[in-house]
């Protein structure tokens, strides 16, 4: 479920004339601009554009990074280095149409590049994750009201649990993060966009299959149990 971070996200730290820390409101001037426009402003040294990007994507990036590793310090460090690098090299970078996708790609790449240091004793949790990209549907959602709906949700959760890590990863990109197939293919390291579509298709087929199996199982077993119970009783 999306959590509301507005309080945290609308402030950022600044230092006023006397050196005391103050909180400044981040400009909302970019709210109705496209990603390409925001990125261009960022490349042209507009500090408001940088803050807008940081404000909008820090939390999302943090959650994304934490899917790969339990070590939250590592995730924070990587995000820090990523933004410093972007700031240093912004003029050289090309056009970016989807900032979220671009930042995801950068972060995933740096996570993979440090993954070979997981044997170092100072990073015991590097690349250890509870269950990467675990998906869960909660009962509290507004679209779920009745008891049968709740049973359906449980079934869906069971189905999600049956997916492989890559299948869950791809479904989160596709259904939750709103990335398109082309971006997903690039993030997953596929040579062709078609491969991303196939992976999604296979994942949703498996979802449906598991859900239906559960349905059939319920329909078959309940009367059977009833029969057995009746048989024993008499």
């Amino acid at each position: 479920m999306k959590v509301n971070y507005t309080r945290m996200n609308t402030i950022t730290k600044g230092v006023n004339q006397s050196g005391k820390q103050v909180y400044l409101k981040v400009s909302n001037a970019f709210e109705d601009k496209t990603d390409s426009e925001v990125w261009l402003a960022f490349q042209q040294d507009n500090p408001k554009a940088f803050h807008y990007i940081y404000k909008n994507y820090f939390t999302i990036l943090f959650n994304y990074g934490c899917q790969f590793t339990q070590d939250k310090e590592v995730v924070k460090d990587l995000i820090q280095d990523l933004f410093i690098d972007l700031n240093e090299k912004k003029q050289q970078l090309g056009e970016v149409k989807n900032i979220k996708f671009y930042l995801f790609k950068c972060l995933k790449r740096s996570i993979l590049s440090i993954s070979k240091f997981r044997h170092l004793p100072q990073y015991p949790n590097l690349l250890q994750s509870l269950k990467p990209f675990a998906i869960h549907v909660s009962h509290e959602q507004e679209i779920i009201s009745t008891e049968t709906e709740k049973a359906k949700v449980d079934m869906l959760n069971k189905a999600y649990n049956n997916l492989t890590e890559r299948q869950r990863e791809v479904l989160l990109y596709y259904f939750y993060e709103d990335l398109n197939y082309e971006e997903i293919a690039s993030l997953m390291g596929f040579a062709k966009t078609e491969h991303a579509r196939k992976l999604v298709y296979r994942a949703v087929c498996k979802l449906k299959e598991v859900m239906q199996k559960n349905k059939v199982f319920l329909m078959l077993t309940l009367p059977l149990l009833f029969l057995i119970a009746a048989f024993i009783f008499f």
Partner: protein
Amino acid sequence: MDYKEFLLEDFLADEFFVNWVKKPNTASDHFWYKWINTYPKKAEIVKEARKIILSTSYQHQHQPTEEDYLHVLEKIHQRKYSKLHKLKVPKKQFHIWRFAAAIIVLIAAVAAFYFNSTNIFKRGTVTAETPKLQEIIRTVPNGQKLQIKLPDGSQVKINSGSKFWYSKDYNQNDREVYLEGEAFFEVIPDPFRPFKVHAGGIVTEVLGTSFNVKAYEKDAIVKVAVAEGKVSVFDNEKNHVLPIILPGNMAVFDIQSGRLGQKQADLEKELAWEKNIIFLEKANFNEVLYELEKWYGITFIVSPDVSISGRFNAKFKDASLNDVLTGLDFSSKINFRQEQDTVWCYQNDLPMR
């Protein structure tokens, strides 16, 4: 396939449908409401698909604290890289492994020689394998350029501040070279031995042509500009292979994200260095200094009170440093003074030293 034949999984895999569920607009609303009215039997499946799409979310939503948010932002403003940053520079690791491999080969060689001479293996002969790691390395410092001829006759012009190397058995089975920095290649055609340049995380493969590779360590983008013939470019893992690049175009590789793309090249700009031309296009002061440091093998020391915000466009052919500095016409207040390899840049008065 038609939407009316769609099953649940087809709706879920359809980008247009998912886009409507996640980010509806008047156009997609119009289409889908009309569609459901026309095929009311499908309403149930659509409802189910919508539910699945909207309910998919992370089980573990990791939420940073307000301190995290501010702490990282502060470090970014201070331009202070984290302790992990050193780790990510891959070269060091590479050298350690090569060093380890060299030592193992050496130990094996010594051991083999020792056992051989003491006649422990009386019947068989153990030959110490000559290490095949031998490489020919050319390092070109700032202020110099180097033109070399490879064993197959191909020409390489290496730009300042670059390192170029290839194995001793180059041209036996393949033609592979490695580059950190910038070089211009004129490759002798050989259909059986493709010529490969490894630089900045990508591989450039050609049969015989001329092209320029730019991959300095400081660069965010690796560029491969094609002057003649055909070139193919792919990343190290061969995940992304670009379509053949034709003259006048270039491959661009974004190191940070790993994006590989192709666009039109301004050959005059990309190949200027090879013709001894300093080519500046919309360069800021720092970029100008970086270019000149590389070109003339000097170091700039800029006094902190100097601030130059403009962008510079210029071309200098065979020019001396003095010509360039006066030609760029920074500001009458800015002075330059050269002492051997160091150039002081200051405003009005030389700072106290």
